């Protein structure tokens, strides 16, 4: 069955420290890959996406993600976390055809300590 797994339910990182959020997917073929962020009272916001080409993709707010086909992973990274990064992060996949919906993981809650 197709699935998206985010192994870490909750992560706490010190402000200024680096961050890596894990995402693994199980799909018949490599899907489109996404990371979204959801802050309290805010809608889901797209951080970055991967379709093809360079496996290291840059997104907004200083985030990047690396696609590793051999590991079926698409981990999100940030070199230096800011207190405003505290939020819920969702990895999502979409089949490579028009009109299909996003399938989300269960999310990882990021807390930032000072």
């Amino acid at each position, binding site marked *: 069955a197709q699935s*998206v797994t985010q192994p870490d339910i909750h992560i706490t990182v010190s402000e200024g420290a680096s961050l890596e959020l894990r995402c693994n997917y199980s799909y018949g073929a490599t899907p*489109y890959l996404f990371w979204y962020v959801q802050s309290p*009272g*805010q*809608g*889901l*916001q*797209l951080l970055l*996406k991967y*379709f093809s080409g360079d496996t290291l993709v840059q997104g907004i707010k200083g985030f990047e993600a690396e696609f590793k086909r051999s590991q079926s992973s698409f981990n999100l990274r940030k070199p230096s976390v800011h207190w405003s990064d505290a939020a819920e992060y*969702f990895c*999502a996949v*979409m089949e490579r055809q*028009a*009109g*299909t*919906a*996003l*399938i*989300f*993981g*269960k*999310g990882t809650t990021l807390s930032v300590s000072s």
Partner: protein
Amino acid sequence: GAGVSQTPSNKVTEKGKYVELRCDPISGHTALYWYRQSLGQGPEFLIYFQGTGAADDSGLPNDRFFAVRPEGSVSTLKIQRTERGDSAVYLCASSPGGGGYTEAFFGQGTRLTVV
């Protein structure tokens, strides 16, 4: 408006009642999606519209759930005989549609509480 608008932002209803949740997509967006997000979970796909028609309703959990988009713009998600398990945040997203991938933009959701 500038973004996807969902009303009401909060809805409390009694078990067994009927509710309607409204989504006003970004102007000109032909694709519209409904998702349900339960506490501690990621958004779960419910239904996808392309224009006025439901192109994929495979995510609707049962026949108590129904959605319409009669003029290809505003959509209404309707839930009959609500149950406490229906309590969740209902999210709407819209995208320009057409061929290939187009980015979906999400509203802030309607928090439904069934008591």
